[in-house]
């Protein structure tokens, strides 16, 4: 049901854009007002969300430990999975962000049988999520960077090179981008695992399905524009450059699929700061990842501790409550006679 609601939501967005920019001829609103507002909400919302997270103290030093911690000299430490210094933690973060190292460790529970045909619960490696998540995220990144050809004038050489490499197979005209295929495979897998794995379907909500279906719809509308509708790219560049240089010209002669694509992207931008998509910024603020495991070397002070409350040792505690504890028959380090 959650998946269907999400699909209906995205379809409603498509209908709004089709009717608004197509039938109602509100091209200027859909070309400039909506995306401009969406971008402002995205940037301001993103910054506010990060600042609000930065205000929250981390009470404990809680890095997840995925290997041997620093110990005696002759025990080999797993420096990337259990870092104990700043540089090691930075390396761990870098690998996490660029290579999704924690997803690579993903396992699943299976039932196997030993030689005597007795059932055995086993944990086996499960790399599909890691592989398709990697495909999806890197394709998305390349696609966003590639779009800069419409945002920058003159187009920098880096963007030209990326554009060329992405279409290097030279299939069809205009050339097919590999990333278009890969993002469909990546996002398609991420959606399929929620739909077909019963355990995942049970815990999946509208806010899990909606961004996935929205991103799939963005990719599909973009591909429709390029490969099927064959929209007028130069007219679109004029609109997009109008947005980035603040010289707005009434758009003309652009296929309605462009407005649908733009409206879906605007929705994604508005939705971004208030949703799970904030893991873009949140991954850097994960206490389980960005703290070194050095609790055996350094004392970690809980930032919200009241400085007026001094440490209270057990000895002091016993000194304070010796008489009542003795009367209650509790075991004591020192009896009242010894203490006196």
């Amino acid at each position, binding site marked *: 049901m959650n998946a269907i609601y999400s699909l209906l939501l995205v379809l409603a967005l498509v209908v709004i854009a089709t009717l608004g920019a197509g039938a109602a001829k509100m091209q200027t609103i859909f070309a400039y007002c909506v995306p401009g507002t969406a971008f402002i909400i995205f*940037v301001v919302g*993103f*910054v506010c969300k*990060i*600042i609000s997270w*930065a*205000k*929250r*103290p*981390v009470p404990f030093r809680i890095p997840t430990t995925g290997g041997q911690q620093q110990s005696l000299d002759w025990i080999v430490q797993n420096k990337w999975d259990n870092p104990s210094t700043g540089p090691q933690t930075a390396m761990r973060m870098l690998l996490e962000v660029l290579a999704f190292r924690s997803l690579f460790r993903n396992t699943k529970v299976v039932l196997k049988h030993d030689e005597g045909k007795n059932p055995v619960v086993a944990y086996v490696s499960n790399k599909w999520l890691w592989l398709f998540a990697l495909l999806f995220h890197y394709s998305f990144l390349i696609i966003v960077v590639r779009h*800069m*050809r*419409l*945002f*920058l*004038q*003159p*187009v920098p050489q880096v*963007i*030209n090179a990326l*554009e*060329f490499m992405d279409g290097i197979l*030279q299939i*069809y*005209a*205009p050339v097919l981008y590999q990333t278009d295929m890969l993002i469909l495979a990546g996002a398609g897998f991420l959606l399929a695992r929620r739909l077909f794995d019963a355990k995942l379907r049970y815990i999946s909500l509208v806010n899990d399905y909606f961004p996935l279906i929205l991103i799939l719809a963005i990719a599909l509308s973009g591909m429709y524009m390029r490969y099927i509708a*064959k*929209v*007028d*790219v*130069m*007219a679109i*560049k*004029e609109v997009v*450059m*109008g947005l*980035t*240089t603040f*010289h707005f*010209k009434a758009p003309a*002669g652009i296929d309605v699929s462009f407005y649908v694509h733009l409206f879906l992207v605007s929705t994604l931008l508005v939705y971004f700061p208030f949703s799970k998509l904030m893991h873009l*910024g949140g991954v*850097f*603020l994960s206490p389980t990842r960005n703290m070194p495991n050095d609790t055996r070397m350094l004392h970690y002070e809980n*930032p919200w501790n009241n400085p007026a409350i001094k440490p209270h040792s057990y000895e002091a505690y016993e000194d304070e409550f010796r008489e009542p504890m003795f009367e209650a028959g509790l075991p004591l380090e020192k009896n009242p006679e010894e203490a006196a």
Partner: protein
Amino acid sequence: MKLYNGGKIITGLVIFLGLFLTPLAYNAGKAAYSQPKLKMPVNEKECVESKDFMRTKHMQLLNEWRDSALRNGKRVYVNSKGKEFEISLQNTCMKCHTNKAEFCDKCHLDASVTPYCWDCHIQPEGLKK
């Protein structure tokens, strides 16, 4: 209210803003962008198909022409008005569009498109010599 690890987080936010505001900074102060003006052929008013068709679908037509001429050996194209053309980049297209820099490149540079026509064909500038 106090920020925890404020220095690092603000640095990260500055990088984030820098990345996302790059297009605005890159284009700042530049004049409004207009589509490039093409140098149209002087002695011919109509292309093989309508202007709108050629604007958006010329690459598709060129691809069909290549397949038709080179793979199927069919060298005659009948357009939507029933007029016949010889399927040939050198002899039909480049008869009018003689200058790549003044015609093809104008949009292709702005749209960052690198067609592979000239992997096999001689560029139109070469024809002028």
